[in-house]
């Protein structure tokens, strides 16, 4: 999700489609929509991968609408209780909701961009504590520990977004390592 050209996360985050409305006619490109039309007509709508959408939007060939993972419904749900939204479900397998969001922010103008950016930041902070708590809980259980408390926690874990998963692993590993150190005693003469 860095702007890094070589960042795999960034490339994966671009692998999302957004809905574009074409403003001009583009001949001989109808096959992009999988339809039988030969040309793309003005005002026709199409799902376009983000990496292709950039150039269309910047060159004013098309407009785009805020994609579903960031629409009002999702935002309301996030406002109500960020921890009960399954972010992973919004962007599909291995998708990066935050990465996707960041790309949308880059496509938007000031006011709406700020708004989405605020949603992203707030959601991240609201969920972070729960991510870390659960990671540490699992680290404390040790290898092969029993299943964690409750369905809510399980639901939350399944809904973790790829970035949050990464943080989960980092926190868990770190907690495990520290715990191991506290628990081992070495009294041998070296």
């Amino acid at each position, binding site marked *: 999700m860095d702007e890094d050209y070589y960042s795999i996360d960034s490339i994966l985050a671009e692998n999302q489609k957004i809905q574009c409305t074409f403003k001009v006619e583009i001949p001989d490109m109808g096959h992009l929509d999988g339809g039988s039309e030969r040309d793309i007509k003005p005002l026709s709508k199409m799902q376009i991968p983000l990496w292709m959408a950039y150039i269309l939007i910047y060159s004013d060939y098309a407009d785009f609408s805020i994609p579903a993972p960031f629409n009002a419904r999702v935002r309301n749900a996030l406002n109500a209780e960020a921890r009960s939204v399954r972010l992973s479900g919004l962007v599909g397998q291995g998708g990066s909701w935050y990465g996707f969001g960041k790309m949308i922010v880059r496509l938007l103008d000031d006011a709406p961009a700020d708004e989405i950016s605020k949603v992203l930041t707030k959601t991240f*902070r609201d969920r972070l504590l729960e991510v870390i708590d659960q990671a540490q809980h699992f680290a404390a259980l040790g290898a092969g520990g029993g299943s964690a408390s409750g369905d809510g926690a399980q639901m939350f874990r399944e809904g973790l977004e790829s970035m949050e998963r990464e943080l989960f692993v980092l*926190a868990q590993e770190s907690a495990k390592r520290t715990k191991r*150190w506290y628990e081992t005693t070495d009294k*041998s003469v070296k």
Partner: protein
Amino acid sequence: MALPISLRSSVTPPELELIASEQLIEIIPLISMDKTAFISGAYGPLRPPAKCKLPIWMATNLKLKKKCHIVPPDWLSVDFLQDRLTRETSQLEFCAMPFRFAEIAKIVLDVASDDLENPDKIRSLLKDLREARQAKSREGITKLDHSELSLPNLCSMEINEIRPFFIRSMGVLTQLTRHPAPADGA
């Protein structure tokens, strides 16, 4: 990078223990030894029963060979720790502890628990202290933002434990925040 993943994110606790072992601690030697030069400096001479300051690694080595008693640092006592625990649980900030107290306390408890008064009580106090402080660093997560974080008096082992995900989260927040400069006044 060729480093294994486990070593990339931060220093490991045993490494921190090694670093802490360079600090000096008082011992009562049971053998005599002339002043001896080491890479880190000259230590000694050991003249029982006079006290002497040595690096912890050397003190533990002698202790394990039953050639000295370790004089625990002032802060490694029931009274001091009890006082700190009370303060730790009653106020919001972390209270000041020696920066590497966790490492040193563990070394001394491991090799020289017979030189301590009431080691079991000390152990349980240290554990309580650790948990109280962990609860506070957990609070710190909620205050996390993209530009700065101040958790004064946090000690090396605690910093090390939270470092990997704190810096990653701050990195993510930097990416998500639209104006890295102040502006949005959050």
